[in-house]
């Protein structure tokens, strides 16, 4: 494996990073919407988002990508491959982040909401100034854990035919006939992104656990 092959892998790594950032970035507002609907006082948004989450948690990410990819083609939308897979990952992220944040919102003592209501704070003010700041803090370790899942998940874009890091590895490995070396390098590249995130997430978790044990 020469310098050119290595640079090609780095190109793939760039696309893995772009896909992850786009999906996570778009997943934050949509996941927040899912979480708020899931904890709404009206039953319909709750039921709808419960179903949405159940579907995404009960099916393989690969199938979600396939269905979104071909559904977009059927709908006549002329999207580029990376836009289609990015949309698939965003929908996936919105469901998982929505479920994580629902858990954190429900973990807050109910008295917080009651106190905010007693102070006659409206829904928006209550959510933005009382609930979310606390819920976000609780949810941080799980959110970072999901980000690691998402970075690893972007490798499935390779099966749909998009050239990110995993597919770049496949291409280089069939050119050089050194699959073990190439996949080891690809694995190290993923590890270099994911491990620091995992480490940070675990450290936060321990810190919060220690704080709540006091």
């Amino acid at each position, binding site marked *: 494996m020469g310098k050119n092959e290595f640079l090609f892998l780095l190109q793939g790594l760039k696309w893995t990073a772009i896909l992850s950032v786009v999906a996570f970035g778009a997943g934050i507002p949509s996941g927040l919407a899912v979480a708020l609907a899931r904890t709404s006082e009206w039953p319909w948004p709750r039921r709808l988002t419960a179903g949405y989450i159940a579907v995404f948690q009960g099916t393989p990410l690969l199938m979600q990508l396939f269905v979104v990819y071909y559904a977009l083609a059927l709908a006549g939308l002329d999207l580029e491959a990376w836009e289609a897979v990015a949309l698939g990952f965003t929908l996936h992220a919105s469901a998982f982040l929505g479920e994580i944040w629902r858990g954190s919102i429900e973990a807050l003592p109910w008295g917080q909401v009651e106190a905010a209501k007693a102070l006659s704070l409206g829904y928006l003010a209550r959510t933005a100034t009382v609930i979310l700041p606390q819920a976000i803090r609780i949810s941080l370790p799980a959110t970072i854990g999901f980000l*690691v899942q998402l970075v690893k998940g972007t490798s499935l874009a390779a099966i749909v035919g998009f050239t990110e890091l995993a597919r770049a590895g496949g291409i280089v490995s069939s050119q050089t006939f050194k699959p073990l070396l190439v996949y080891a390098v690809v694995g190290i590249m993923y590890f270099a992104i994911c491990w620091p995130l995992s480490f940070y997430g675990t450290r936060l978790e321990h810190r919060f656990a220690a704080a709540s044990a006091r």
Partner: protein
Amino acid sequence: MHYEFDFTPVIDAFPDLLWGCLGTLRLALAGMVLAIIIGIGGVVLRDSQFKPLRLLVIIFVEVIRNTPFLVQIYFVFFALPFVGIKLDPTPTAIIALGLNGGAYAIEIIRGGVQSITRGQIETGMALGLRPLQVFRLIVLKPALRAIYPSLASQFILLTLTTSIASAVAAYELTSVAKLIENESFRSFEVYFTVTLLYLALSWLMMRLLAAIAARYLAYPVK
């Protein structure tokens, strides 16, 4: 743009899809059994007196948890022939699934073992229970009860992960779907149906795992 949905190729191939579901379940079950064996072995080594062994387990867990399964399965796929082991895609996929699930199982099982305190075991012995009874009633069952929910959701996750085994052409639902798609070009119809089948599979499995917990791990014991 107008598109006519045509599910006839999917309906014609439905028996094949059901066989694919069985293939998926087989992969998931075999992978889970291997994962639990690796998990238990890993916990024993993880807490052994010999430091290099402990380090080895920690590295294994971190590497598996921080790299994609797709890369792992390709690595196993190409590494096995390299060390002189020739296997079909399906057993190869089972090994990869077992290694992947095993890394997560080590963490889960270790948490369960640590939840049993020395004092509980001593209490059991003081009550005159025989060593095997102490192990079964005081160590194993409460530990299982503690880790069962995490282990069960890990099992569901493993079942969904089997779809990635289609990348090395192991026999399971997604590979069957790909074959039908290649013959019919009805991509959306095929994958939509298969997604519903996966949803049914994971739902069934969830009910089954919950039923097992209710039957064998209910607490307090009647």
